[in-house]
């Protein structure tokens, strides 16, 4: 049963609270998923430590070649950030696609990652961007790629009773790089995706220098279309290559059938279309 609710003003205070509570207190940021999980008794905690009042976590910053998004930054901040729109449109679009404005005004992007749902839109975009999270434990700070933060379906490697993700960062994309996010959903608001795809491409001499292609929900976490990425590397930017990548992506996809969000057959059938659209849009961005 929840007994306390802390509202620390600094990272140091937050870490101290985690330590003092010895595993019984849990970090809450926006909390839009957490409070429902708590009400449904999917998680328990004696206390919440609310990090949304920590000024240094509320910022989107660009420095040393990195764009970083603080743990208290909301989806709406990201969706509307000029910096993100300019350099990482895939992330801005992914953030805009989540829930509704009322949710985007509270829910944080870092929280979306830590909540570890396989179809979390911004996580899909962040994996494409090659983002990594800054994770504070009691004594150390480490950087972990977002795509390595999944311990299983809906389970994060981050332990929110002893660790604090302070920010997520990714290298500022170069001029020859572009990103895109494509989403298939039954409704334009208040709906999880049936499928979403994020792509980041780096072009060189009309060829794909490299590509990060991420799909969800086609597995327990955002899934890299590794075979397609491998094929694309060094291939010319042509319709045929993109078509081939779209088909190859299926080899890394293993979607489930859902009576709510579409059968496996449909998702497999339509995934190549989304892959193609994402690649075409990302290429256009990069040019």
């Amino acid at each position, binding site marked *: 049963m929840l007994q306390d609710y802390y509202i620390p003003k600094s990272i140091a205070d937050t870490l101290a609270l985690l330590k003092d509570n010895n595993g019984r207190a849990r970090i809450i940021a926006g909390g839009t998923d957490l409070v429902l999980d708590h009400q449904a008794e999917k998680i328990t905690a004696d206390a919440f430590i609310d990090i949304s009042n920590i000024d240094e976590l509320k910022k989107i910053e660009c420095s040393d070649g990195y764009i970083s998004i603080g743990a208290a930054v909301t989806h709406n901040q990201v969706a509307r950030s000029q910096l993100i729109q300019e350099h990482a449109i895939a992330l801005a679009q992914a953030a805009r696609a989540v829930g*509704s404005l009322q949710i985007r005004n509270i829910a944080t992007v870092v929280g979306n990652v830590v909540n570890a749902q396989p179809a979390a839109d911004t996580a899909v975009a962040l994996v494409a961007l090659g983002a990594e999270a800054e994770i504070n434990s009691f004594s150390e700070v480490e950087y972990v790629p977002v795509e390595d933060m999944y311990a299983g379906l809906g389970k994060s490697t981050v332990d929110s009773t002893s660790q604090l993700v302070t920010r997520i960062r990714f290298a500022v994309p170069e001029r020859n790089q572009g990103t895109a996010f494509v989403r*298939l959903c*039954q*409704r334009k608001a208040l709906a999880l995706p*049936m499928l979403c795809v994020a792509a980041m491409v780096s072009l060189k001499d009309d060829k794909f220098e490299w590509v990060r292609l991420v799909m969800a929900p086609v597995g327990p976490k955002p899934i890299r279309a590794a075979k397609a990425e491998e094929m694309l590397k060094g291939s010319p930017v042509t319709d045929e290559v993109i078509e081939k990548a779209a088909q190859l992506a299926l080899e890394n996809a293993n979607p489930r059938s859902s009576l*709510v969000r579409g059968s496996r057959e*449909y998702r497999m059938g339509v995934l190549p*279309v989304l892959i193609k659209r994402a690649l075409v849009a990302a290429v256009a961005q990069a040019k």
Partner: protein
Amino acid sequence: MSADKIDFDIVGKSVRRRDAFEKVTGEAVFSTDVKLPGMLYAKVLRSPYPHAKIKKIDISKAEQLPGVKAVAYYGNTPRIKFNTSATMTFTVPHLEPVLDQYVFDDIVRYVGDEVAAVAAVSEEIAQQALKLIEVEYEELPAVYDPLEAMKEEAPHIHTGCKEGKNIPGDIVKIDMGDVEQGFAESDLVIEEMFKVPVQKQVQMETQAAVAQVSREGDITVWSTTQTPHPTRMILSRAFGVPHSKIRVLNPPYVGGGFGVRIGCSAKAEPIAVALAMLAKRPVKVVYTREEDFIASDTRHGGYVWAKLGVKKDGTFHALDLKGVLNAGAYCSFSCETPGVLGAMTLSVYRIPHQKYFGHSVYTNTTPAGAMRGFGNPQGIFALESVVDMVAEKLNIDPLELRLKNIMQVGDPWCLPYPCGATGMAECIEKGAKSIGWDRRGKLNKPGATKVRGIGVAIGSHVSNSWPFCVDYDNAYVTIQQDGSVQVACGVPDIGTGTTTTLPQLAAEELGVRFDMVNMTFGDTASTPFDIGSHASRTLYAAGTAVVAAAKDAKQQVLEYAADLLDVSAEKLDMKDSEVFVAQGSDEKRISLKEIAYHAHLRNKQFIGVGRIVPPNSPTWEAHFAEVEVDLQTGQVKVIKLVGAHDVGKAINPAICEGQIEGGLAMGLGYALSEEIRYNDKGKQQNKSISTYFLPTAEDMPEVEAILVESNDPSGPFGAKGVGETGLVPTAPAIANAVYNATGIRFTEIPLTEERVFFALRNNKKS
């Protein structure tokens, strides 16, 4: 009351709604807002199984939890059968209402069925107590599809079905002419089976009730019901308490209806009363959104077969229609819905030979009951798809084909009331213009991956519920001592603007200023009996009663004024709250205020009474859709929706438009995305707003509501019903547009991206 009068003072004007100010400031009180001293909060234990016998139930641990004041289950609540829907109070005399529910039973028949309920000092404690109720179930075989449920091997869900396995009530049969002969004489016969989904009302306020039982045993229930008077009758039966000791009222607002609470608000009222009786304290029951989804009536899903025979020139000649609907676990309105499906679908076109056979079938799913359109959208989806198929086969423009065959005034039909007026042709013409029908067939370039199409569908509906059920109305119009006017009528205002439009009618009929008229409504203690707000009837039927009462009151006023003015009453009339000499050049006049007070000082008040059995009148509507289909993903996007509606006379045009616009949105969802599906364990898969895809603001196309006025001779000032018609032909209009875009005929809705995707893929292969 005359339909041909043109110069109205207040009728026909979009006056600001009477409830608007309270609603925009948050002051309007709804059932979920009601709080009484000492009030307890209830939570309901629901079945996890689709069909099971409760072998053992132990409530003792729950009762012992501190804060728990009562636990109700089948062992301590009345064993009197009833039906939560108002059908049990107004089934017409030659039929027997189906009574198949208890407050709690020892058999559960769908996932979500009520097992027990707890009243406690807080919701949290009540919720905790539910976990302490020990139940031992013996699972029984379950069936979910109505066709399966009629088979010999299917389990019996209820006993005593006289018409066949799991068929509640009576099979509806309608016959006109001779269909066999009709098909023999036809040049073209098209037959198709259609499947329609389970749709949910998703009214914004979930089912809710607060019950208070006095020491004398008087019961007061504040609730979300659309029908306070019939709900009182239901509670009276279920608890064996006289009508006169029960008061049912709205507090006074209801957060939407769409049919989901014609009668009780699911079981909110009976559960609240049962717990209040046990606890001897007021009890509040508010359904969670999930409970509202899984345990309150839905639209009927099921199957419709349509067989249409036509002559070479496109003249419709024979129609054979059949409907088998999924009743779910309890009957609710499952006897009437197939009837309305048949009667409405047969009555759109002049067809000399017609036949209908329809019924519902019990299954182990959430009960289906009334929902806006009441069977009509199901039937019209089938008919209007088949009509489109005929148009193509005969190579006749779909509009022309429809215009050639639509019902005209005086045409014979299967309904026991006349087609008094029709503006259908005008609806078709105006709607076609709005959608740009001329562009049809010229919208796409070869090789496009997104293709457009335009479609049309038409339909009709009722303006009240007679002859499908008992239907009568009463109203009082009382002139107050200062000349102001109190209308009392037993209908609620579920959002349809009743409390604005009925005073508009009264003001117009009386000749008093609108701002002098107020209304008492939605309360059995202060209004005479009325069957409530449903069947598009409130303005048409209750309005007829209000006009009759106003006429009565006015006559009394004029007769009284005749003495004061020394002019015969026949020569007098009233306008702007002033009696004047309407015939002749006499300038004498006297204000209603003076008359009323003069009468008061002489021990008299003018009280008009309206007691009417309303007639009925067909509404007419033509819907048009322009769609864009993504050939690669199967997604259908509606670009524009047009609803052109013959509303008889728009008493308040803004309110009429609002009804149509809301209907179109709901019809859009029915066509494309709304459906409750079940897994193989009988569990509802779409039970939250995020998993049930009703449209949001961002999903809406451009919408145009067009009002056509045919001035119906039977309705108040020419008005007809408008509440339900907005979604009757929407789905086939959209499906026909998708056909126009893709060449694929869908016989099942909703047109989800997945359904369209596979149809496109299979089509390409074949």
